C-alpha cells in the first residue's frame, strides 16, 4: 500500500521534473520559434503588397528588397522614427507589438504605430499592419494602400483559431482578393473603410459598393471582426494620412 506521504512526494517530484524539462525546451527552442514568427510577419506584409511569390524561404531577401522605409508614428500622426537601413527586420517599427499598442490606445495611454513603405514596380505602397479579434481568438493582417492612401493594393489576414472552412476562410486568397481595388475614402474624401457585408456586397447602394466586400457565410462573427479591425486600425492612421495625402 502507498502512504499519502509517498503519493504527495511522487506527484511533486514528477511535476517538478516535467516543468524543468519543458522550461528547458522552451528556452532552447525560443530563438527558432521567434525567427519563424518574424518570417511569417514579413510574408504577411509582402503578401498584402501583392508580392505573391513570397514564402517562408525567400521572405527575408524579398522583404529587404521591396520595403524601403519603416516608420513609427505617434497618435497625432507625426513620424517619430524613420528607418531605411538594412537589414529591415531590425527596424523599431518591425519590433512594435501591436497588441500592446492597441491595448494602450484603449486605455488612453500613449501608443506607437508602425507603417511600412514598399517600392514595387515604381510605385509607393503604404502597408498598415492590423490586429483585431475574431470569434475564438485574435485575428491580424496587413492592408496595403496606394500612395494617395485611397485604393487598396491588397490585404493579408491570418487568425489564431477561427473555425476552418468558416471563419478561417479569411486567411484564404479567395476572400482577400475581393479587397483589391476597393477604396477606403469616398470621392468627397470622407473615410468609409472597407465594409465586410453580410449577405453580399450587392446589398449596399451602388455608390457604396466600391467600399465593401462579401462576408463569409457561416463566419459572421469573424467577418464582423475583420470589419471592426479594418475600421479601428485605419482610423488610428487617419491623422497621418490627412497630413500626407
Amino acid at each position, binding site marked *: 500500500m*502507498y502512504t499519502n506521504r509517498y503519493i504527495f512526494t511522487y506527484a511533486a517530484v*514528477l511535476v517538478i521534473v*516535467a516543468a524543468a*524539462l*519543458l522550461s528547458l525546451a522552451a528556452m532552447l527552442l525560443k530563438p527558432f*520559434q521567434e525567427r519563424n514568427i518574424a518570417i511569417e510577419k514579413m510574408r504577411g506584409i509582402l503578401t498584402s503588397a501583392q508580392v505573391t511569390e513570397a514564402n*517562408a524561404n525567400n521572405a527575408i531577401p524579398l522583404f529587404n528588397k521591396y520595403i524601403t522605409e519603416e516608420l513609427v508614428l505617434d497618435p497625432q500622426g507625426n513620424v517619430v522614427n524613420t528607418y531605411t537601413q538594412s537589414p529591415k527586420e531590425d527596424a523599431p517599427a518591425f519590433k512594435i507589438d501591436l497588441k500592446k499598442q492597441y491595448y494602450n490606445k484603449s486605455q488612453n495611454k500613449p501608443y506607437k504605430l508602425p507603417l511600412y513603405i514598399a517600392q514595387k514596380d515604381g510605385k509607393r505602397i503604404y502597408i498598415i499592419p492590423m490586429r483585431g479579434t475574431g470569434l475564438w481568438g485574435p485575428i491580424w493582417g496587413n492592408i496595403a494602400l496606394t500612395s494617395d492612401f485611397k485604393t487598396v493594393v491588397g490585404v493579408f489576414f491570418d487568425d489564431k*483559431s477561427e473555425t476552418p472552412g468558416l471563419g478561417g476562410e479569411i486567411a484564404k486568397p479567395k476572400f482577400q482578393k475581393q479587397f483589391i481595388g476597393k477604396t477606403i475614402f469616398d470621392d468627397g474624401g470622407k473615410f468609409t473603410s472597407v465594409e465586410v457585408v453580410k449577405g453580399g456586397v450587392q446589398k449596399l447602394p451602388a455608390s457604396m459598393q466600391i467600399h465593401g466586400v462579401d462576408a463569409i457565410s457561416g463566419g459572421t462573427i469573424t467577418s464582423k471582426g475583420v470589419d471592426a479591425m479594418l475600421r479601428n486600425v485605419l482610423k488610428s492612421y487617419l491623422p497621418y494620412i490627412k497630413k500626407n495625402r
Partner: protein
Amino acid sequence: MQTEKTEREALFSPKNIKLLTGPLNMNNPITVQVLGICSALAVTAKLKPAIVMSLAVMVVTGFSNLVVSFLRNGIPPRIRIIVQLVVVATLVILVDQLLKAFVFDVSKQLSVFVGLIITNCIIMGRLEAFAMANKPWPAFLDGIGNGLGYGLILITVAFFRELFGSGTLFNYQVIPQSLYNAGYVNNGMMILPPMALITVGVIIWVQRYYNRSLIEK
C-alpha cells in the same frame, strides 16, 4: 541455460513484432477500436499535415508508453491517471514546441490538434491497457505500433481527400489540366470533415470485407 533463454527475449521476437504489426490491421486503433476519430477527421484534408500528425502521435504514444512502463511499479494506483496525463502532456508540449521551431507552416495548419493529442483516447488507452502491465521495450513497440496503425488510416484518408478534393498530392497537381479543361471539377465535399468520416467508414467496410473475423455478431 534453459531459464536464461526464457527470461531474455530477442528484441524483435515474433511476439514483439506482433505488437508492432497488430495495430496496422487486426487491432487498428481507428478502424477496429474506433478511437482517435476526431483528429483523424480534422487533419486529413491534405497529406502533409496528416503525415506530420501521424509522426507526432507515434512519437507521443511510443515514448509515453516507454516512460509509463518504466515508472509502472512506482506509480501509486490512486493517482495513476494523473501521472499518465502529466507524462502525455509533457511529451505533447515538447512535440508542439519542436514543430513550431522547425516546421512552422505545418504547425500552423495543425494548430490546436497537436495540443489535442493529449486527449487522444488511443494514448491513454494504450497506457492503461498495456504500458502499466508490461516491460518498457514491448510497451514502446506497442506504442509505436498503435501510432503506425493510426497513421496508416490517416494517410490513406488524406490521400483520397487531397486527390479528389484538391486534385493534388503533397500540393503537386496530379490530375492533369486537360481533364479540368474537359469539365472535371474538384469535389469540394472532400475537403470538409463529413467526407473524412465517410472515407473512414469505407475503409472500415473494405477491411471487414477481407477480415470476416472483425465483423461484430
